[in-house]
């Protein structure tokens, strides 16, 4: 949906807010999860050369290193170990948890730090300074009229909910 900033000015904007349904807790949590996924990603964009495949031998070994004791015939194709491994990280975590339960030892899961005791601080979702106002529709925060306008035009969840 495209709504220009102009149409949202003044009373028009207030009317828009009235029409928007309030984003429920589930959607807000989904938004948070999606944000966290972006923050944990190795890359944001797609592989620009996804078709590029690693050659069997790693290119450009120094010629004079060929004399090393390592026998050439033992060198495995780069995909060999991946094919042998075939485990997802979540599978590894689960295996660790189960092994730990059986033997009563500490596991990866046990080490995760507890929740903080401190109250959350609130920041403007637009400019990053402290904020006092909450978007009624989506629960994000802003600090000023200017930032509210930007928020309404951009990341406010009311459009996607």
């Amino acid at each position, binding site marked *: 949906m495209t709504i220009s900033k102009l149409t949202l000015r003044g009373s028009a904007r207030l009317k828009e807010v009235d029409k928007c349904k309030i984003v429920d807790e589930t959607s807000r949590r989904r938004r948070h999860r999606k944000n966290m996924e972006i*923050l944990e*990603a190795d*890359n*944001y964009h797609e592989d620009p050369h996804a078709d590029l495949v*690693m050659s069997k031998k790693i290119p450009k070994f120094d010629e004079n290193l060929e004399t090393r004791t*390592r026998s050439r015939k033992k060198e495995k194709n780069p995909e060999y170990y991946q094919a042998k*491994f075939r485990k997802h990280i979540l599978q590894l975590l689960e295996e660790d948890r189960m092994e730990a339960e059986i033997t009563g030892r500490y596991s990866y899961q*046990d080490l995760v730090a507890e929740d903080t005791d401190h109250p959350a601080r609130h920041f403007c979702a637009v400019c990053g*300074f402290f904020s006092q106002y909450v978007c009624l529709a989506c629960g994000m925060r802003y600090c000023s009229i200017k930032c509210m306008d930007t928020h309404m035009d951009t990341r406010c969840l009311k459009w996607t909910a």
Partner: protein
Amino acid sequence: MFGTRKYSGEGFSTSRRDSQTTEFKPHMANRKYERHKSKRLKQDENPLPGTSRATKSKLRTEKIFNVPVYILDNGGYSAKVGLSTKDTANVVPNCIMKVKSERKRFFIGNQIDECLDLSGLYYLLPCEKGYVTKWNVQKPVWDYIFNNVCPIEENPVIMTQPPFNFKAIQEITDEIFFEEYEVKAIYRANPTDFAYYQYNCNAKGDKVPCIIIDTGFSFTHVIPYIDGKKYYKAAKRIDIGGKLLTNYLKDIISYRQLHVMDETYIINQVKEDSCYVSLDFKEDMKIAGLQGESNTIIRNYVLPDFNNIRRGYVQKPEDSSVPEGCQILRLNNERFTVPELLFHPSDIGMDTMGIAEAVVKCIFNCPEKYQSQLAQNIIVMGGNASFEGFGERLYKEVRSYLPDHWKVNVYKPENPITYAWLGAKSMSEDPKIKSLLVTKEQYEEHGPHFTYERFSDWLQAKKEDLDSSPMVEVKPTTESVLLKANFSRKDLFGKYDPDLEENSNNEQKSEILDTGFSVFTNPNESKNITDDTSRSSKSSDIISEGASQSVSSDSANKNLDSEVFICNTDENSSCTNAYPSGLNMLDTYDFDIFNQGFV
């Protein structure tokens, strides 16, 4: 205990531009050594001829193995690699990269230096959540490192692995190193284990309880060490690392001014060059909100154009000229709200506690008699520790949570990124390393299970005393066991320890330490350890509470570091306590294989 030099505001941290540099400064370290050389010789009972540090350590290493040890700190973003005869590690990107401008090739590790245009760089990283899972990435990078960066010959290998490194991962690692690379012997431990060794090898054999904070690319660990072992009950992991910080900076810059979501590589450099940890967050927010010259935080960052400028840089505040054709980022509160996440994950809606809070909780989860000592030995390492202000902020926050009469010390190594490598190097010079290595023959005889058990100290870290409570209660995964705090009568592995009980009431803390050399017992003697350890912190940064004390070169010389520790080491003595891992050392292994294999 490390150093009582009062924090003066100077020299704690290198300048922002330097804060991420991984260059070693040998002149700093060596100069100090040279100064004490003559005196040290008089005291050294078995002086070796030709005693510059380098030659001596080389001699020692070669006496053990005849060849240098190959040391690899395999981080989630960069590998730190080098032979034990070298002063410092090579830092190599532990990834394969593709760039938009080059559609025919990959860039493996530091091959990226050959690439002219780094825009739109795409990462293939070997790790997920800090654990190697993508072997089709890790293996080529290792191949590259072992062939081109630092060639391996007949060297034994010491390498790092993350805590809980899973069995399947260790098995593949063994297969690669023993079967394909045909490495003669291997030892693996966590980066913090090596840091612990490094921190303690300056303290004449006494193992000081300490808390090590390793904050890297994938996550942050807060791990207490007591009596040479990790105290798992109080250890914590915060799932925030350098990757998340870079992505967060990318996100807010893209939203506020310039779309840079595809420029992880460049924004990582922006982060390294311009971000810092605020010492007074509210105040900095106030300053960043000001207009004009009173805003002392705002900076311009000149982005690289990959024509004239290969790496971006922070413009000096007075310089407002824009190089032709260059794009500028305006960085204001971004400079400190990004690293702030390490201390307040809740700022982006995460529920978890921040580093300082975790350190304090960690201290209080440890047995009471160790608590004040732990507060005096807080060590920070890993890439995020390089942020300007990181150590000071941690000190300030931890200080504010703890009782006033406790001392608090935060120790930041000169180079937090290569500190684990340095620790592994020191360990490689200790004869005891022989009993830690697993040889190819042992691997072939006993199989991968053998190495897994030898290198995984967490296998010994039992939650409850199984003898006194035969019913093993299996806890749901969500419940943290760390909250339970009645542990005073039991040691790490749940054994009843009457000493713990008796000494818990502020007894002389020297009794905690293993042997002689009383520390903290009375003010006069504690001066010794202070001077001694202040030497260990040469050209490093210490924030310390307490009276400022000048370092007397005489007494600094008196308790000389690892040299003494190693020379006095009885090779046959049990080293269970001497090593960070909680493994049962088997001293009876036949290590002749080394002497035959490495001649």
